[in-house]
């Protein structure tokens, strides 16, 4: 589903990318475009290269061949840090051990705007609005480590909102979060996407992705499918990517 040639500038453009760790190939010939306002769900079996693809599009790694552009710039040279919010896998677990309040963590979203010097009124407003938006304002003075998994995830979303990011990338954000909080979390993502935020979500629960995402990319080293959820359900892409005997929907971790 490559965007129309005359459309708006894509947020992410991955073209003919190969990537490997040493001798072990991880991604082969992957091409993918994410348009502004998209909600892309990235699915695939464990070890299929999902996290690596995300790291490539954030510029954290460089492809062996092919190109990755982020907002029209080569991803590894992209330095407009506030436009992208990233919630890494297990990031929240490590962060939980530090004495940092919810407000301090959300304020980090403003750091790319103001690395030194006092926060302006606009900075503080952005932080307050972000806390309100994800409904953690009443927890602002609590330690991040003392929150539940679901609350903690919303704090990290708030950090991206405080940055006024245009792209939010999440890597399996709801691992270890209870079912009810998960539902609430995905509703929030859905709303933010409706408000214009572009989202890329790595998720192993296919059900979540087909419900909330506007498009799905199915990956296992190669890209097996990229299109809308309705088409995805009708095709064999899932079975192809996961191999024959696996039924990922019932494959609860």
């Amino acid at each position, binding site marked *: 589903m490559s965007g129309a040639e005359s459309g708006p500038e894509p947020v992410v453009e991955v073209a003919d990318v190969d990537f490997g760790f040493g001798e072990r190939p991880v991604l082969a010939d992957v091409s993918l475009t994410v348009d502004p306002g998209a909600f892309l769900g990235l699915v695939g079996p464990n070890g299929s290269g999902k996290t690596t693809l995300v790291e490539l599009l954030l510029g954290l790694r460089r492809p062996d061949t092919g190109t990755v552009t982020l907002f029209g710039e080569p991803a590894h040279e992209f330095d407009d840090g506030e436009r992208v919010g990233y919630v890494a896998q297990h990031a929240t677990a490590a962060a939980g051990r*530090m004495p940092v309040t919810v407000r301090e963590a959300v304020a980090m979203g403003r*750091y790319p705007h103001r690395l030194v010097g006092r926060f302006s009124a606009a900075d503080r407003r952005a932080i307050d609005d972000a806390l309100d938006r994800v409904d953690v304002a009443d927890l602002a003075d609590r330690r991040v480590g003392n929150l539940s998994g679901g609350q903690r995830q919303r704090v990290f979303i708030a950090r991206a909102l405080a940055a006024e990011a245009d792209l939010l990338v999440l890597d399996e954000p709801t691992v270890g979060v209870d079912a009810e909080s998960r539902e609430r979390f995905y509703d929030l993502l859905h709303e933010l996407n409706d408000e214009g935020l572009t989202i890329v979500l790595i998720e192993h629960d296919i059900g979540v992705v087909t419900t909330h995402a506007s498009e799905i990319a199915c990956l296992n080293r190669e890209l097996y499918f990229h299109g809308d959820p309705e088409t995805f359900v009708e095709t064999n892409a899932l079975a192809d990517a996961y191999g024959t005997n696996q039924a990922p929907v019932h494959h609860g971790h």
Partner: protein
Amino acid sequence: MVTEMSPTPLQSAVTDPISGAFDWFLVEVWGRLLAELSGALGVGMLEYPFMQRAYLAAICIGIIGPLVGAFLVHREISMIADTLAHTAFAGVAVGLFLNSVLELGLSPIGTAFVVAVATALLVELLVQHGDVTTDTSLAMVLTGGFALGSVLISATEGGIAVGINAYLFGSLATVSKANVGLLVVMTLLVSVVVAISYRPLLYVTFDPTAARVAGISVAWFNRLMTVLTALVVVSAMQIMGVILVAALLVIPVATVDGARSFRRSLLAGVVAAEIGAVLGISIAYQYRLAAGGTIVLTAIGLYLVVRVGGRFVPRRLAAGGTTPAGDRTPQPKADGGDED
């Protein structure tokens, strides 16, 4: 201990006024203040100039130790402080060795700075790119540095082994004016650098991947963190001793781990370090004990009181709701909610 170099005229033109001003501060301001305090409290030891210098040194170490240590501890690389201290010892030995062999007038503290900062950059390289684990590479650099120091000392003729003891275990009674001057300058320098780079250092420590995505150079700020550690360790080593100097970067930070915000944990860490250092020095003087060791044991005692004692207090408070139960630390409410 500090071999005085014969300064060039240019150096003298710069350093003389500074050293003169520092003399004035040490005698007229600090000395008088403590003498007044001595009269008011009836504590005789505050009147002796060497104890006045020792207290000033301890206060400086109590500020910069936890200020830098907080980032190390939460990046889970506190062993770096110990590693750099041991290689700084090698730096001292290098200075003494070169002086003895080539008859150079190097300051051993100067060579310690050079070697410790170089090692800081090397260690950061090993942590980021090494094949071995951080733990292992730090242990190798630590013992390797100390081994180099001991070999150089044994290879140097004459009486340099005499001065070595003071570097190994530290010494209060021999804290010179130059030592304290160095510490005051380092305290100002390190505090200003941490204040300026507070946000990137915090982000890099809290969530390095997100910091990188946000366009912050994680590698450079990690380097800055270890270089600051080298500066703190070397300037404090003559008082605390090479073997014990890392303690005040780590123990106070661990003591206040219950603090809620990072900003408060920094303040509370400094308070904990000051209590340990000032109380430790006083006890050491009173009972004629080794200063470095007494300070460390006092700091550990404070840790036990706060962490073990605190375990019983916050439970009851926490049951009452979300009152400041996370804060089981004796810290001032100085931040007035001005957070970032």
